[in-house]
Structures are given as structure tokens and as C-alpha cells.
């Protein structure tokens, strides 16, 4: 009897539902939205096709949101995520479309593909490292540093492509964004793995502890003997690397790379992170909350899409939902204070 109770407690705390009332509200909200859409769209919302399209759409925004969330947890921000992803995508697509000899078969294309992906990821990591270096060693505030690198990298993206699209990627690369393994779309597998690894880093490693500590009190973290500058370097390179992963999925889904892809996602990633319970000043926020927030956003846009409404109504509703959740949070805090 006791054993089973502690088991459920363990499960609950693993899902952080017990420790994190915010996530509980998000679960309720998500359930309500799903219930609403399956009622007014009987037989359509729960169709495999719709669920699969959700599974194809969440990962891009999801990976970029995780890339935004990590710096936010430390009290920083990374405004360069979209620019980083696009530059990575452009480099990878450039190598993929130029260096595979026509009609080549066997090892050569595979080698080029592996090189292209590795170079892309390495580039995204380096951009992140540059952001981290500017913030940690020059002492520029994260918002200004990444505003600068964002402008610079967007410029490089435009200048290097002249606004053209690089398209026509090889078949194996397309599989990453469009393939299905055992009924599960590839992008969601990549996202799940990345989210799991990041959650592990955040909750089980010294780096994770340092990130949360920095977000709560940077000076105290410094005086407790943690080399903040190295932590910042790691935060932003990890953030950059995640943009690289997002870029690979993005170019594979679009079968192309271009300077302005996903530019409207920048502010949406911040919105998703805050909706998921990430404190904009750092220190608080969990992967589960972010994933719930992403699902809420995607359910809204898929549901409205099935209803034949414009995608822009979904964008407006995203903003509305965020304000609603912030309002509920405020009420909850007030009630808690009255109870005490």
C-alpha cells in the first residue's frame, strides 16, 4: 500500500506535477483545448493525419524554444537563435547541393552528407561560443550582445544568398525532416532525444545547477566559487548547437535554405518559454512546462487550421493565452497569500 503510494508520488514528482503547480494548470488548459477541439471537430481532430502533422510541426519551434529557454534560465536571452539556425541551414544546404558529384553513388554522397551536417553543427556551436564569449569576457549584456550578433548574422545570411533559395537537397537528408520510423515522424524523435538530453543536463549535472543558480543570483553564484564565465560559454554554445539541430530539420522539411526562414518564430520562442513557466529573469522553469506550452500552441493552431481559420488568428490567440496564463498565475499567488 505504502509502496504504491510512494510509487505514484515518485511518478508525480518525476513529472514535476506535484512540485510545480504551474505545470498542473497547463495540463488542465491543454486538456480543455483538446476537449474543445475534439468536440467541435468530431472525428477530425484525433485523426492520425492531424496528430502526425502536429508531430511534424512541433519539433522546429520546439528545438528553437529549448535554445531560447537555456539562456533564459540563467537570466540571459539569445536573440540570435533564428539567425544562427538560418546561417547553419545555408552552409549545410550549400555543401549538400554543391559538393555531391552528379550521378555519384555509394560512399561519396554519404561522406558529403556527413561532412555537411557536421560542419553545420560545428558552425552553430561556434556562433553560440562567440555569443558566450562576448557576454562572458567583454561583459556585454546578453540582450545587447545577441541583438548585435543577430543583426550581423542576418546580414551575412542575406549577403551570402542574395535573398535566393538554396534548394534540392539529397534524398537521405530529406528523411530527417520527413521520414517516419515505426509510425513516429523523425523530427519528433530528434526533438524528444534533444529535449531529454537537455532536461538531463539541467536537472542532473553541475552545469544545470549552475545555470539555475546564476538565474537566481549571479553574484552569489560567483562568490560560491563557480566560474561563471565558463558556465556562460557552455550555455550559449549549447543554445547555438540546438539551433543547428533545428536548422537541419528545417532545411530538410522545406527541402531548401533561405535567409528569412522562421523569422517570425523569434518572439514566439520567448512566448512559449514564458507560457511554460520559465521566469524571464531566470532561475525557474522546467522542460515539462515548455513541452506543455508547445503542445498548447500547436493544438490551437492545428485546431483553428482544421476549422478553416487563418493562421494569424492562432498567433493572436497565442498572445491571448499567454496573458491569460499570467493572469491566472497572479490570481493563484494572491489566493495563496490570503490562505497564509
Amino acid at each position: 500500500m505504502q509502496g504504491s503510494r510512494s510509487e505514484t508520488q515518485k511518478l508525480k514528482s518525476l513529472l514535476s506535477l506535484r512540485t510545480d503547480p504551474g505545470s498542473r494548470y497547463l495540463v488542465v488548459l491543454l486538456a480543455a483545448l483538446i476537449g474543445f477541439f475534439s468536440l467541435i471537430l468530431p472525428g477530425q481532430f484525433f485523426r492520425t493525419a492531424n496528430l502526425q502533422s502536429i508531430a511534424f510541426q512541433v519539433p522546429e519551434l520546439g528545438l528553437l524554444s529549448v535554445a531560447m529557454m537555456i539562456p533564459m534560465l540563467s537570466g540571459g536571452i539569445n536573440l540570435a537563435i533564428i539567425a544562427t539556425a538560418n546561417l547553419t541551414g545555408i552552409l549545410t544546404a550549400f555543401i549538400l547541393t554543391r559538393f555531391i558529384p552528379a550521378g555519384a553513388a555509394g560512399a561519396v554522397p554519404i561522406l558529403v552528407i556527413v561532412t555537411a551536417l557536421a560542419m553545420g553543427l560545428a558552425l552553430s556551436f561556434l556562433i553560440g561560443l562567440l555569443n558566450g564569449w562576448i557576454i562572458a569576457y567583454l561583459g556585454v549584456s546578453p540582450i545587447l550582445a545577441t541583438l548585435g550578433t543577430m543583426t550581423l548574422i542576418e546580414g551575412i545570411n542575406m549577403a551570402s544568398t542574395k535573398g535566393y533559395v538554396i534548394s534540392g537537397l539529397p534524398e537521405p537528408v530529406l528523411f530527417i525532416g520527413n521520414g517516419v520510423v515505426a509510425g513516429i515522424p523523425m523530427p519528433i524523435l530528434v526533438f524528444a532525444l534533444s529535449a531529454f538530453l537537455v532536461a538531463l543536463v539541467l536537472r542532473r549535472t553541475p552545469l544545470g545547477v549552475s545555470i539555475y543558480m546564476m538565474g537566481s543570483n549571479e553574484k552569489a553564484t560567483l562568490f560560491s566559487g563557480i566560474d561563471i564565465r565558463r558556465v556562460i560559454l557552455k550555455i550559449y554554445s549549447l543554445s547555438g548547437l540546438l539551433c543547428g539541430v533545428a536548422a537541419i530539420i528545417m532545411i530538410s522539411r522545406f527541402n531548401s535554405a533561405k535567409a528569412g526562414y522562421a523569422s517570425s518564430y523569434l518572439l514566439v520562442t520567448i512566448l512559449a518559454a514564458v507560457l511554460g513557466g520559465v521566469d524571464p529573469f531566470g532561475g525557474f522553469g522546467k522542460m515539462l512546462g515548455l513541452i506543455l506550452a508547445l503542445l498548447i500552441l500547436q493544438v490551437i493552431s492545428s485546431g483553428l487550421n482544421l476549422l478553416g481559420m487563418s493562421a494569424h488568428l492562432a498567433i493572436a490567440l497565442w498572445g491571448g493565452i499567454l496573458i491569460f496564463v499570467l493572469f491566472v498565475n497572479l490570481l493563484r499567488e494572491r489566493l495563496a497569500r490570503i490562505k497564509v
Partner: protein
Amino acid sequence: MKLRAGRFLKSTEFYLFLVIAGIMVFLTVLTEDFFSVENLFDVLMSYSFLGVMAVGLLVVLISGGIDISFTATATVAQYVMATTLIRHGGGWWLTFLIPIAIGITLGAMNALLIYSLRVHSIIITIATLNIFYGVLIFLTGGKWIYNFPDWFAQGLSLFDFAAASGKIYSFSLSIIVLVAAIAITGFILNKTSVGRQIYAMGGNTEAAKRVGFNLLGLHFFVYCYMGFLAGTAGLVQAQLVQTVAPNSMVGRELEVVAAVVLGGASLAGGAGTLLGTVLGVALIAIMSNGLTLMGVSSYWHQVVIGLIILGSVSITAFNRKREEKRHAGIEV
């Protein structure tokens, strides 16, 4: 007086002034067209609406907040204005009244949400940006608007003059609005009690509250003023290009933030000057114009601007760090 001059020589404004002066001399020597009335007027006209929004954003930054939604506000304002003018007609007073009323209303919504939800303004205004813009496109379908009435196409002008080339230039709507926005903002920030209260609130909100400032009132003032200028900027931009395209301004909000920050305003609040902001916008405007005149492809403009922003914020931060080290001590 001596102290003031000394401080000015160390200020961001002075460095910016030097950089701009340097670039202007360079461009005047290198290109024929830069230092001409025509060109400088064109630059002034085409950057006027960005300047107006930057001035409004400066006030928000000084108050310790930030507004991301102003591009959406401006777009909503110009959309409603254009639709009304074309469908129902109207004169100049209506042309000004509509965008200003819309700007102030949307600004008031921001202020109310920021104050009552106690969440940082960047989060609220990201949400309201999505709401304003999403609802606008949902209701209008995102159609472009052309065919304005003739009097709107002709614009307003205080006085005209003929340039050396014989082309007529006028002290037109964009320039009138820009000058007025700078003058009014300068007056509010430096000569009124509200202005000083805004600085105080940005410097230390808690202290401002305990002194007994009306924080709700100040929030309303700051965000409504931003909305007022954003609406006016929407009008100016629509008049300049004679088109209302819903995606022409949204997405450029961080560009304006960059210009204001370049001018030395602090994102932490409490610091920033009007002169700095004007110089920040001027630097970006002159740089872009200069690159165009030198025949550099417009694709490279943003690379240069990015480098300028990075260089400027890095130098500022590095200097501050060195300064802190020199005065290092144990603070408890």
C-alpha cells in the same frame, strides 16, 4: 560648466558624434552625391518614421520598461486610417486623429497589463504584438492598400524651396512630425515633472513608489506616449510610401531597439538621452545611405550595421568593466 564639458567629452553622445562626423567627411570626399541638400533630405524623409518610433521607445526604456509591440501598433493605426480615408473620406484632422487615438488606446492596454500583471514589459508586449498583429491580419486578410485620395498623396508642407538642381524640396509631413516628436519629447523629459519622474522610476522603481509617485499613472503616460508616437509614425510611413502593407514594419522592432541602445540608452532603465537616440538613428541612416552611394550591395548593409552595434556595445561594456576594476573595492 567645466565639469559638464568634461562629462560630455566622455559620453556616448560625444563618441557617436565623432563617428558620425568622421563618416560624413569620408562620404563627402568619396562620393559626389552625399553632401547635397537632395540626398540629406531624402535620408531625413525615409528615416523619419523610424526616428519617431525610436524617440518614443527611448521614453519607455528610460522608465525601465521596453515595448516590442509598437510596430504592430503603427501598422494597426495606419491600416484603420487608410481604410477610413478611402471609404469615407475625411481631411487632415481625421488623418491625424485616427492613428493617434488608436496608438493611445493600444498603449493604454499595454500599460494596464504591464502594471496589473506585474510581469516584465518585454513579455507583455511580445504577447500584445502577436495579438494586435494577428487580429489585424485576421480581420483584413492582410490586403495591401493603395489609391489614397490626391490630397493625401500630395502631403503637407510648411514651405518649399528649390535645390540647386532645380528640384523642389519641401519641409514636408515626415520632417514636421520628426522635429515635433523630438521637441515634445525633449520638453517632457527635461522640463516637466513627469519627465523627471520617468527617470526616477527607471532608476529605482521601489524608491519611486515609496516617494509616492503614481506608478500606474506613469505607466499609462509612458506606454500611451509610445503608442501616440507609433500611431503618428504609422501615418508618416503610409504617407511616404503611399501604400499600407501590413508586413512593412512588423519585424523591424529590434532594429529600432538597436538604434536607441546605440545612442546610449540603458535597457535597465533610468539612463538615456534624446541627443543619443537621435545620433543613434542618424548613424544607422547615414551608414546605410553611404553604403548605397558607394555602390555597396544593399545585402551587405546589415552586416556593417551588425558590426557597428557589436563594436559599440562591446566598447561600452569593456570600458565600464575597466572602470569598475579601477574602483574595485569590497561592497557589502
